[in-house]
């Protein structure tokens, strides 16, 4: 497989040295395919989620969990790595609790984990977060080349779906988002994706970035052996300084949008709940007509 390091473009706004392609694979412990999976710790969607005064998501409710859609990303990465004889690194950015997201990844079978932790990251917008991830992946790539980055299709907190494409653009690698099927063969990644109005098959040479949907697979549950093994796996914590990023590039300082107003939506009023006594269909028809909905 043709190997190339990730070399991020415009990480932190500055051009970085482009790594030349590395055409050999004769190095000692280099795995056949090295995959980085980006995962996120989010408030549980079953919990009462809220925005704080600053307009940021309240993340200290203790109801945090691994973004469910990232389990599909981990599953896809683990399946690909198992088939090709590779290695999976779980990567997250976030406050202290966020380490739980990569730990879950280790329990599912990832080989190592990286947690980028820095107070200055709070308040980052999507591009700010993508900058941190891009810098971390580039950092990982300087040790051992990274072939593929896998993400979930969206974070269940913000649901913007912007991160995967922004990250690929910063890393200057092809993006193949929303894969319902993904395969890697001979240095080429291929995905099938279902869009709003069409189905597409995309292909690109590695290194590349793929985001996978919840249709892509059925994520495995960590078993007892996996949970025990995860305790011995390394979790590396990195700061912005370790990644050569300045606080001005991320966090609220680097954000391009600001929440100026946020309020819980008022409860619906004048609600009607009836038990069907044989005329509920007629009553509903009258309600729809009265409210000009039919």
């Amino acid at each position, binding site marked *: 497989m043709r190997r190339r390091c990730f070399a991020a473009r*415009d990480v932190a706004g500055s051009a970085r040295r482009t790594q030349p392609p590395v055409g050999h694979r004769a190095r000692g412990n280099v795995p056949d395919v090295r995959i980085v999976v980006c995962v996120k710790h989010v408030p549980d*969607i*079953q919990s009462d*989620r809220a*925005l704080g005064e600053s307009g940021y998501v309240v993340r200290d409710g203790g109801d945090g969990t691994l973004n469910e859609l990232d389990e599909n990303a981990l599953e896809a990465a683990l399946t690909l790595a198992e088939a090709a004889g590779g290695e999976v690194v779980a990567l997250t950015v976030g406050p202290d609790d966020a380490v739980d997201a990569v730990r879950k990844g280790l329990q599912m079978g990832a080989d190592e984990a990286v947690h980028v932790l820095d107070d200055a990251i709070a308040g980052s917008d*999507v591009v700010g977060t993508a900058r941190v991830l891009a810098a971390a992946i580039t950092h990982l790539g300087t040790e051992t080349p990274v072939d593929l980055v896998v993400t979930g*299709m969206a974070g*269940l907190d913000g*649901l913007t*779906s*912007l*991160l*995967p*494409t*922004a990250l690929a*653009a*910063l890393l*200057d*690698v092809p*993006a193949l*988002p*929303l894969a319902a099927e993904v395969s890697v063969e001979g240095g080429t990644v291929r995905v099938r994706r*279902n*869009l709003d*109005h*069409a189905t*597409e*098959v995309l*292909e*690109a*040479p590695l290194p590349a970035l793929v985001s996978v*949907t*919840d*249709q892509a697979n059925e994520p495995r549950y960590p078993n007892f052996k996996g949970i025990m093994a995860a305790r011995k796996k390394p979790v590396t914590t990195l700061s912005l300084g370790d990644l050569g990023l300045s606080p001005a590039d991320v966090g609220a300082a680097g*954000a*391009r*949008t*600001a*929440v*100026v*107003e*946020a*309020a819980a*939506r008022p409860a*619906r009023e004048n*609600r*009607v*709940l*009836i038990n*069907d006594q044989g*005329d*509920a*269909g*007629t009553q*509903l*028809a009258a*309600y729809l*007509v009265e*409210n000009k*909905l039919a």
Partner: protein
Amino acid sequence: MTDSLVLLDHTADGTLRAPVRELVTLARGLGGAIHGVWAADGAEPDAETLADLGALGVSRVHRLTADADLHLSAVLAEALASLLDATGAGALLVTSTFENKEVAARLAVLTGAGVVTDADGLVVEDGRLVASKTVFAGTWNTRCAITTPLAVVTFKANSVAVSPAESGGVPDVVDHAVAASAAARRVSLVERTERPASGRPDLGSAHVVVAGGRGTEGDFTLVEELADVLGGAVGATRVATDEGWIGHDAQIGQTGVTISPRLYIGVGVSGAVHHRGGMQASGTIVAINSDPDAPIFEIADFGIVGDLNEVLPQLTAALRAQQG
């Protein structure tokens, strides 16, 4: 006053996608010139379409061509960046499709634009653009200021009522040709199949949606009949699509289609959190379910605890009688 670009999403035969007309209506609120952008991917806008756009307030249509496939989001993003530069527009308005969000993300990196996704409104306030949107599955309303000179905003369908401009004319059409970068060409589009039109409105932008869940036990006949009498689209829960009762493109939810129609009717839908995330922002929510404890009743404006096989035929017949 902000000049804007509006991406004119269209079908393979050149029909405008319905929500685009809302975008033009919204763009008028920014007070500047409105440029339409037509990605020339084989289909062309006909005279009727151009007249319609003109009546809504579009003064010029830029016909984008590229030396690579404009269906590739990296290619389209580069072309739009070039056009934003050429026109000096301060805002790009696009519909909230997955592809357009990819374009928005790439433009954020290419141009430094501030991006808001799934907005339902956009206004100029104190010289800056402020977008409104609901978050957390429709349970919170927020307003976001875009603090960069360039804003890229994706809009949910059914955000605003379409209205004509006070004065309009037929827009002129100018070509804008771009060369895609080597980076944008690294992805190849091996295959693209547009889903055929179903004869019903598009789920994502329909004014009325009737959704079937587990309670239908796989029979969507009554759901379809009700949708047709209301002129609505048919949707489904994850359970129904996973069971193969209906195609995956009908799935409403956080990972499927997000909808905010004027009227949503859930039939045998329990209202799992993933489904609610995709429909909770609907105008009026109606639920019909035999289980009084179904969570969907917590958010329903009109709930019926009953057997859908009794309620739906009666409802459909009553609506038909009403329509005469």
